[in-house]
């Protein structure tokens, strides 16, 4: 498994680079939560200085970074000044909620995109294909933000679906969660679908030209089996790479959708933290998103490795 080890090392390197970059960037930031606190006449300057020393904010950048890495390795992700609590439990909960939303959206988007793409590819040039292409072109022109706002508008006007949050207060059932997830997942899926369907269609349409498909057809293999068992696996390689890419797109879109639909994920937390200059929470939020994206890409690589023996030789 030297291949997997190499990939993991590379992922760790990228993560290291991202964390150094975000620390360096935030070092340049004018002021933090504590410098705003200093403006408050009710708080003694000694108190602020003591807080600063306690969290190591008066140290130079390399020391600060080293301390942060050391404590992050123990699961301590710094301190949220705005919430006046350790950042770790806060960020973990939010990251989990983002993960739940994005995984559901990724799953739903692919489960819809693959059959749709196969169908369009099988009916190349037919009415379904052309109508689908027009519909997707229209959908791709609607930005995520508008999509989310329109869906939310629909929800609050019809009162058919809960408009925001993750649970109804006092309830914690899986059905309640599903009802709350429906709207944000729909916004994410509709936003991601055009790109996915187009790629599935293009990849499958290309394979359908191949001689082995002709041969299989000549053997009398029914169309559905031909599509799912012969064309789709042969067309899978670019689609698996696209899977990694789609994780990034969905995470990014999810930030916005979370804020619009008040889903308690990383998105709203990050926006609040930036507005409050809550330094550690910003870094944690950004790094969590990087971890998710890198994990998604890694998963795509592993899937590719499993699906295509040719990759294993390189």
């Amino acid at each position, binding site marked *: 498994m030297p291949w997997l080890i190499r990939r993991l090392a590379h992922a760790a390197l990228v993560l290291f680079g991202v964390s150094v970059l975000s620390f360096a960037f935030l070092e340049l930031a004018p002021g933090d939560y504590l410098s705003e606190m200093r403006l408050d006449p009710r708080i003694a300057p000694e108190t602020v200085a003591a807080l600063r020393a306690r969290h190591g904010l008066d140290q130079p950048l390399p020391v600060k970074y080293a301390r942060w890495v050391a404590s992050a390795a123990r699961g301590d992700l710094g301190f949220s000044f705005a919430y006046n609590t350790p950042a770790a439990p806060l960020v973990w909960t939010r990251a989990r909620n983002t993960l739940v939303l994005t995984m559901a959206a990724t799953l739903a988007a692919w489960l819809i995109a693959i059959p749709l793409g196969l169908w369009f590819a099988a009916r190349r040039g037919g009415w379904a294909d052309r109508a689908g292409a027009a519909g997707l072109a229209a959908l791709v022109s609607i930005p995520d933000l508008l999509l989310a706002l329109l869906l939310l508008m629909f929800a609050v006007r019809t009162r058919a679906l809960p408009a925001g949050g993750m649970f109804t207060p006092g309830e914690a059932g899986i059905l309640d969660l599903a009802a709350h997830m429906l709207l944000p997942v729909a916004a994410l899926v509709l936003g991601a679908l055009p790109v996915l369907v187009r790629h599935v269609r293009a990849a499958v349409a290309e394979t359908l030209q191949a001689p082995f498909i002709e041969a299989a057809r000549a053997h009398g293999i029914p169309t559905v089996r031909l599509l799912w068992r012969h064309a789709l696996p042969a067309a899978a390689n670019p689609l698996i790479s696209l899977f990694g890419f789609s994780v990034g797109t969905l995470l990014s879109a999810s930030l916005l959708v979370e804020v619009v639909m008040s889903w308690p994920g990383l998105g709203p937390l990050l926006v609040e933290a930036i507005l409050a200059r809550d330094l550690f929470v910003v870094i944690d939020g950004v790094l969590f998103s990087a971890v998710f994206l*890198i994990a998604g890409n890694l998963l795509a690589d592993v899937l590719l490795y499993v699906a295509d023996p040719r990759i294993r030789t390189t």
Partner: protein
Amino acid sequence: MWLIRASVRRRGLVAALALLGAVHGAVLLAGFLAPYDPAEQDRRHPYAPPGVAGCEPGPCPVRWFVRDAAGRPRLFAVDAPARIFVLGSDQYGRDQLARLLHGGRVSLAAGLLAAALSLGLGWIAGAVAGYRGGWLDAVLMRASEFFVALPWLYLLFAVRAFLPLEVPPETALLLIAAIIGLAGWARPARLVRGVVLSAKERGYVLAARGFGASHFHILRRHVLPQTVGVALTQAALLVPQYVLAEVTLSFLGLGVGEPVASWGNMLAALAQYHVLVSYWWMVLPGVAMVPVFLGYLSLAGAVIESRDSIGL
């Protein structure tokens, strides 16, 4: 110039360019097309629905090609004290049409500036990395990897986080464009590098080198022209994405602030529940992004098609 030649042949390209011309033209002519100034308040008519407001004794005919109180030409108006709100008014009774057109200036300018910056940086970095190779290539590409390792919006917010929060609206536009442009340099750089890498191994480039052509000459004459197609496609794809980025930042209060209008801070009103329920016209700045997206995305599609057909 092949763009013009290609546009003669392709209806899709013509339609895209016409749509984009209309959108940008309308935004440039904001002062003429809208009957009021974007910051002009009318506290008597908050959240007035589209139509004529305050027309008590009536009738209030619409007059075309008039001059307003300050003597500026306007396409249309109604006589005071009545007010015409073609797209309704906001919470301060400001004309949504005026704010939409003036806000479009801000949002489109931010998108265009940021795309120019991203593309410029990416082009230089990609060309240098691809042509020069060696350690410079390694450093630049590693750096770009860190930038693409973050989901786009998270990256944008991370870059936004280290800049001051309260900036005057005039500098905010430039600041936002700079942030978006900086955050997005990596993708064009990687694409341009790929093209340069393959272009510099072409036979005629090697021949030119054999004749003793300088690096500058080879880049300018033989290598960079190859990247024009990729760069144009990227530009057409980046502009709508960056317009949306500005709108997103301003929507969340991290971008261009009041009283200057931008599509993003206009949409921020929808964060209030009652606005979402009762005043549908407040969502129109979001709808205004649709023709922008449609225009630029079909332009990108048409450019890719023409590139294929003339082999760029």
